[in-house]
């Protein structure tokens, strides 16, 4: 999956300093698959130990696939979802954006 360089992975960008665990759980998704999202918009809320934090869109585009549903656990660095960047933001790879 990850060889598709036209897609952008949604991950927890900054793991909190004050937790020991390398696992988290997705608490709430605020958008569904196929939703149009804007860069830095909050996509979901995750909980790591007792710390809740929002995960923001790394790019403007379409949320094409959610890999970790609500209540699903994930490892540090794991991809939670994929965004296909909007065409004007990814003009350099314009042919592959519909995939």
């Amino acid at each position, binding site marked *: 999956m990850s060889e598709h360089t036209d897609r952008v992975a949604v991950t927890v960008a900054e793991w909190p300093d004050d937790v020991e665990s390398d696992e988290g*759980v997705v*608490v*709430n*998704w*605020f*958008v*569904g698959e196929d*939703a*149009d*999202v*804007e860069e830095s*918009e909050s996509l979901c*809320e995750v*909980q790591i130990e*007792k710390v*809740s934090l929002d995960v923001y869109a790394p790019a403007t585009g379409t949320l094409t696939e959610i890999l970790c549903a609500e*209540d699903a656990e994930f490892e540090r660095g794991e991809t939670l979802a994929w965004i296909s960047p909007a065409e004007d933001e990814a003009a350099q790879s314009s042919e592959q954006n519909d995939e």
Partner: protein
Amino acid sequence: MAAEASTRELTMSRAMVSAIAHEMRENSEVFYMGEDVADYGGIFDSTEGLREEFGYDRVMDVPISETAYLGAAVGAAQVGMRPIAELMFVDFFGVAMDQIYNQMAKNTYMSGGNVSVPMVLTAAVGGTYNDAAQHSQTLYGTFAHIPGLKVVVPSTAYEAKGLMHNAIRDDDPVLYMFHKRLMGIGWMPAPEGPKTPVPETDYTIPFGRADVKREGDDVTIVTLGLHVHRALEAAASLAEEDVSAEVVDLRSLVPLDTDTIVESVEKTGNLVVVDEDYRSFGVTGEIVASVADEALGALQNVERVAIPDVPIPYSRPLENEVIPSTEDIVTAVKRTQ
């Protein structure tokens, strides 16, 4: 932006906060105070992020004296501010009952109309998470009983935002009771349903307008708060047995939308009232009596589903036994058929 607004979903807590933040940006007289509402963001996320945007002058942590800070809120409201004061658990009302029952609710009348009390009292309500008898009540009936207070209870994020806008703009005291289980907190997962699309712009839901959450022909289920979702689940399961249930979400207890309830009962003939408060002297009795007043002839069968008159147990199986479940609602509906 319109496309985002239609697909974005919010938890109930975030919808509440977005309404409060909007009103605080528009009106410098609006401020929030309560226990753990500033640095902690509310123990049920009711004020998450507000202190970061508005600072400590407008989002205030207060000492543990409900009498002091609810009294301060009443006074601030009377001189023209628009305070929102949070009672961390509605169960704690007893230590400030004079401020709520005798000052907040009555000062407009006691002053001969010389002052109004445009404040919102927010309070977390409800059980289902084993917090025992002093932290699990809804007490809907206790507050809907006293004249002078408006009482609203959101069931979804959409309702939470629209009712909060209306509550802050109202010139009278409003009690805004939010159910902990609906807020969308990580450690207390909400059922399916309260997380809904929420417009980014402001909008109001008028008080005294119930919402028919599901239409049906055979029975009217009247409920509020968490039990809207249990009633909808019951209605879905009853539909598989060819029983068509209408679900009415009260949204506001005071004023009460008797018209919508009566209209529904005149169609179905059967009334089931579901409440997470105690059975006696409460919402179920009031709704049944209101329908009997208006349309006695339309009532064929009546069922009340509520907490039996016992303090809510700490034990999980015992708490599950006394709080109305989806199965309890299904069983009550079947008795009417």
